[in-house]
């Protein structure tokens, strides 16, 4: 087997098991840690797909920034462990598991059974595609308007989260 194949199965297995453990754990903090593991293995898979910039920003943005935010909020709120479903809802839970399995089997059936001759079986091995240079060029030349809109989105999100999360000043004075 090639090294790439071994690495794909390695990372894919870690990603799959970690994503299962995210929803199987009762404690939110453990779920968050498994989600970080999942993001790291996804970064490895992005590297296999020769998307270096995306892999690095996956580690920095997702595993770094977003998950730190999650863990921070879990620490701040110090919530109790999750409560179980009320009686009649347990059947719905099992139903959802079965339904999810059916959807996954259906998706895999269509993915592997489909006729996708237009897509080459091998990745077009050009390391230049995923470099910061190429992505930056595309971002600033062809996608400059969405880029500016995205920066406004981040600004609005910053202001909005401050407004939502801060206490009312009148309340804290009382």
């Amino acid at each position, binding site marked *: 087997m090639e090294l790439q194949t071994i690495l794909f199965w390695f990372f894919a297995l870690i990603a799959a098991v970690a994503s299962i453990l995210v929803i199987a754990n009762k404690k939110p903090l453990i779920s968050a840690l498994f989600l970080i593991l999942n993001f790291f293995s996804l970064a490895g898979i992005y590297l296999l797909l020769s998307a270096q910039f995306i892999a690095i920003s996956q580690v920095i943005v997702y595993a770094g920034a977003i998950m730190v935010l999650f863990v921070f909020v879990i620490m701040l709120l110090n919530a109790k462990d999750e409560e179980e479903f009320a009686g009649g809802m347990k059947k719905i839970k099992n139903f959802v598991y079965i339904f999810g399995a059916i959807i996954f089997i259906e998706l895999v059936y269509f993915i592997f059974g489909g006729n996708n001759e237009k*897509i080459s079986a091998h990745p*077009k091995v050009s390391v230049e595609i995923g470099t910061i240079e190429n992505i930056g060029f595309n971002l600033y030349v062809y996608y400059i308007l969405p880029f500016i809109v995205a920066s406004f989105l981040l600004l609005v*999100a910053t202001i909005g*989260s401050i407004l939502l999360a801060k206490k009312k000043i009148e309340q804290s004075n009382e």
Partner: protein
Amino acid sequence: MSEITINHYLALSSFMFVIGAVGVITRRNAIVVFMCIELMLNAANLALVAFSSFLGDVQGQVFVFFVMTVAAAEAAVGLAIIIAIFRNKQSLNIDELNLFKW
């Protein structure tokens, strides 16, 4: 088995998406529901990067960049909302957040 095609990447992506969807429905904790949404976003990202790599086109990766931006903004605002809810309700159980239900 020996060679990795785009189908394998798409299968992994759909697996993660289904797990995220199941988690959103079955979990009761608002923060975990949020993490499952991140899982689904990452599944979509994986599919985009796989197509981008196998088609030799950079547009998919540019789109993933924007998805990451939106995910960061969404996580910040959503967690702020969760903090505000917790301040009012002293609970993160989404079963208790049924003000708008019916």
